[in-house]
């Protein structure tokens, strides 16, 4: 479970990038985080994962404050950043072993998980190659495998579908559903509204640092005047602000 309580962050004095954000992502839920470019999505994700410190408020991961009990809170997070170009000089298997060591995944579980995840994403045969030779999509896949290796309770994914082929994208969505069904929590940001609609139990829309909507897609449609397309709904909500 992720609790975001009254969190604010500003990079420049007097201009809040995230303004008094309150959110609760329950266990067993897939939560989609939407918003135009520069709305504060990545800033929020960075604060949840401990990359950025919030100026005000607190964030709890399964009840643990990310600022005060960072190490134990981070153990329960599997994070996929928006750019997958990470440690490209390492071989795929070296990267996964490294992630396994950092998150202290026992060898037998590690073996099963690596095989399971990389075969699902069809990169098992490429594990002995340096990641710099991977395509963008393959890099995205290996980073996802690394993040999910320790089977963390809370998945936080920043634009996870970018660069994935249709099959990998489908598989990832399936994995997200399964993970949530097992009583875990999935929080992800996306620009693709259709993905959010089909996958998410709830969505949150952020614009200019403020959370302007939280609820299901049905709530969103009901709140607005006419039953337009998803894009129209989105534009209407973000333009009203």
């Amino acid at each position: 479970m992720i609790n975001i309580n009254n969190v604010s962050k500003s990079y420049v004095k007097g201009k809040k990038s995230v303004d008094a954000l309150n959110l609760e992502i329950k266990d067993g839920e897939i939560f989609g985080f939407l918003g135009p470019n520069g709305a504060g999505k990545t800033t929020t994700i960075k604060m949840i994962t401990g990359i950025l410190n919030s100026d005000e408020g607190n964030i709890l991961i399964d009840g643990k404050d990310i600022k005060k009990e960072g190490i134990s809170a981070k153990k329960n997070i599997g994070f996929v950043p928006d750019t997958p170009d990470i440690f490209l000089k390492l071989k795929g298997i070296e990267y996964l072993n490294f992630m396994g060591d950092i998150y202290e995944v026992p060898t037998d579980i590690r073996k099963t998980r690596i095989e399971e995840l990389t075969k699902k994403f069809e990169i098992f045969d490429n594990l002995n190659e340096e990641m710099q030779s991977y395509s963008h999509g393959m890099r995205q896949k290996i980073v996802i495998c690394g993040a999910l290796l320790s089977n963390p309770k809370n998945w936080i994914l920043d634009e996870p579908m970018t660069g994935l082929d249709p099959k990998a994208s489908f598989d990832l969505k399936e994995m997200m559903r399964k993970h949530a069904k097992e009583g875990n929590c999935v929080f992800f940001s996306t620009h693709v509204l259709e993905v959010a609609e089909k996958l998410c139990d709830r969505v949150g829309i952020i614009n200019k640092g403020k959370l302007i909507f939280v609820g299901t897609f049905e709530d969103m449609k009901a709140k607005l005047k006419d039953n337009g397309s998803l894009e129209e709904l989105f534009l209407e909500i973000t333009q009203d602000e």
Partner: protein
Amino acid sequence: MNKKIISLTKVLLKNSFQRYNENNKKTSKIGKILLYAVLVVYLIGIFGFLSYGLITTLQQVQQEAMFIGVFLLGLALLTIIQSIISVTNVFYFSKDLEYILPLPLKPNEILISKLNVILVTEYVMELLFAVAPITAYGILTSAGVMFYIISLLVLIIFPIIPILIATFIIMIIMSFSKGVKNKDRFRLIAPLLGIILALVLSFSLSGTSEITDEELINAITQANSMVEMISDKLPIIKPAINAIVNSDFIEFLKLLGITAIIYIAFILIGNKLYFRGAVGNLSSGSKKGKNITTKDIRNSSVGKSYVAKEFKMLFKNPIFFVQCVLPSVLMPVVFLGIFIVSISSNNSQESIKQFQNVIGSFIETPIGLAIVLSITEFLTSMLYIAPTAISRDGQNAIFMKYIPVSYYKQLIYKGIPSVVFGTITSIIVIGFVYVIAAPSVLFLLTVLILNLVLLILQTILMELVDLKKPKLEWSTEYAVVKQNLNLLWPFVLNLLEIGIIFIVTIPLSFANYLIIALVILVLHIIITYFVNKYVYKNQDKLFDKIN
């Protein structure tokens, strides 16, 4: 120079020069400029001071002109060695070629722009290393305005040919890269081969005019003959010396003429040679590996795994390895190797023994210890692992923030390669000390332990420098190590360290060297303890800039 070349040069330079963290608006720009101005002035001051000492000594035997000769030869060699490393990076390793090649640019426009980047870097180096010696010479010989004007002109033209020599050597080596399977390893070896080739060339050139003792005496008695001897080696040295020493504009024109001819010839040949090697270089590391087996999936402790990753990232990235590790390991081998070879080849067995006895009786004294420590300090100031520990990760540095490992521990893991390679440098120096002075094992052990303690402190402090101003937004690895002002700090810190060692040593120089060693040891353990405590307490704050 056409507009395209100028704008491409500008872009390449901007791309590689340090961009400060946008979020860091608290410290004023003036403060930053002032800080670096102090650093630069400090370094210039040291070179000025050294030049002053050398020129006044030479003036006593009316050989001050020799200073300019030695200075220019040193500058040429330094430029060649530095350019070999820069050229491999700027011409062959930087990612920008992938974006530049599809643009409607002529090959020679790209070539000239890239040469310009190297030239600008060398001008920055000249600012640090050349301004003070020339000014010191001018003042001490009460030279007129013409001297300064001509010197400035010479310094502008002078580095071009050494750069072209370095570029040519690397181009020849890289043109063989097409057929090589492991490109990364080849990239790592190329600059090494280049430096060896440059050294072999300069030795074979100097071999013909080897200086014996007799010649040396003659040389000192005959005015200017030393300068003549040096000038044989490079066609530009003689006109450059004459231009500066005699403020002779005609000689400068000669230098300009030679440079222009070689430059044009180079552009004509370089065009073909460069693109043959560079295009072959674009596709790297695409070889297909074997499938993994269960043995490949293995467990390690967090610390071991983290440190192993740090070593792999250094070894597997040729730019980082060549720039951050190699100088401090290679320099002692080159310098000390040359020294040993020259002693043993020019002297009889007996005189070597005598030499060893003299040094041996002196080495196990406080001053002897201080000198050995200073040599290692100087050499490890070229070790750039710690001051780039964070910056080398670039945008991946945020990884440090979201994994469940404390920042303090990560800093320690990141520092270990620096301490390991610094210790290798220290062992090379110790080996050298053993060969020339054969001191007791206790002495050698003392040096090793002291070096280790100094290295640990140096590593933590340099990591703090990097944390204070990390350079995370880069598109080419070259930018992290080449145009990074943070890398002035190891020099400053180690010079300061040498100062401290001597301040402690001189008043106690009558005592046993072990007492000095103990004082240095205790002093550094105390400082390290407090610095470490500071890092541990402030780890969250120190990592603020990484986001």
